């Protein structure tokens, strides 16, 4: 199954810049699967470790971005301009190096949001944008 994926990477970028294909392949050292399950909305913060010297500069950048604030997998991938699949592998390396960690309690939404959170979000939106109205009743 794994043997398929290097070609898959190439195919996916066939229309794109050839150097980015090579770079994505180099970044992951040919790996195609992340070690950890990371959702698109999983958030990461920095841990006590440092990225090892063997890790690419993109890893240093990920850690630096997460030092400013915790960031989602999607935001990191979008900021780096790299596909999520590639960034998931880099994040897995950084988790192994303890340079990143998943915050203890504020993980990505994994269960349906509670009524309390929905009501808080609604109140917060109305406070931020007092002119905004829900159309639910109008329909």
């Amino acid at each position, binding site marked *: 199954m794994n043997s398929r994926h290097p070609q898959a990477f190439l*195919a996916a970028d066939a229309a794109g810049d050839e150097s980015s294909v090579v770079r994505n392949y180099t970044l992951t050292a040919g790996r195609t699967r992340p070690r950890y*399950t*990371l959702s698109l909305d999983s958030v990461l913060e920095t841990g006590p470790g440092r990225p090892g010297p063997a890790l690419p500069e993109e890893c240093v950048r990920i850690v630096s971005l997460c030092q400013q604030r915790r960031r989602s997998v999607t935001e990191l*991938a*979008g900021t780096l301009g790299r596909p999520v699949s590639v960034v998931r592998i880099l994040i897995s390396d950084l988790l192994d190096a303890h340079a990143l960690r998943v915050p203890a309690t504020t993980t990505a939404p994994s269960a349906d949001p509670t009524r309390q*959170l929905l009501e808080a979000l609604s109140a*917060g939106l109305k406070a931020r944008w007092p002119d905004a109205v829900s159309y*639910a009743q109008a329909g």
Partner: protein
Amino acid sequence: MPFPTPRQADPAPFSRGREADTDKPAILKIVIAGGFGVGKTTLVRAVSEIEPLTTEEYLTQASAPTDKLHGVEAKDTTTVAFDFGRFSLDMPLPLELFLFGTPGQDRFVDLWYDLSHGAIGAVVLADTRRLEASFTAVSFFERIGLPFIVAVNQFDGAHRYPEADIRDALDLPAVIPVLFCDARVTTSVAGVLLTLIDQALSQASTRPAHTTLQDA
């Protein structure tokens, strides 16, 4: 409609031995689904604190039937680009809202499934010039039981259909709100989000407590 199998990988390691991060905002997310050019990025930009990011993901999927006719056995890998934006609220609770804008074609259903998990709900952003482009998204969210609303982005010069026609065209049940918006205008977009939250609240009071996506 095919559902993807879960990824085989270890769960990400959670931080241990630390007190709960109760000061950290809770994260909520909303999916914005719509066809190409319907204004998803514009809508995300209207409320996001960061310039919307375009993020790429590879999707591996079974070849379309047309490929099988040509004897192609390999799975296709396509690249899908989706939008990401976010904003934070301090009052009454520290919250962070993630907005994911995703393309409307049914070949991206794996991505919708991923993004829908744990989401408040979805805004199906529609364009009256191409209403049929929203049909797949509507039936997907209906099927998985995710709260959703239909927001019609009012383009200048586009014919303004009555709500009943849109409802008819999309075969929408009466309980699904349909509203008109201007994706460029922040308060209009905030109104769309408020409508979705109301819809999620009303659906939460009627649906069973432990509905999972797999049950759909």
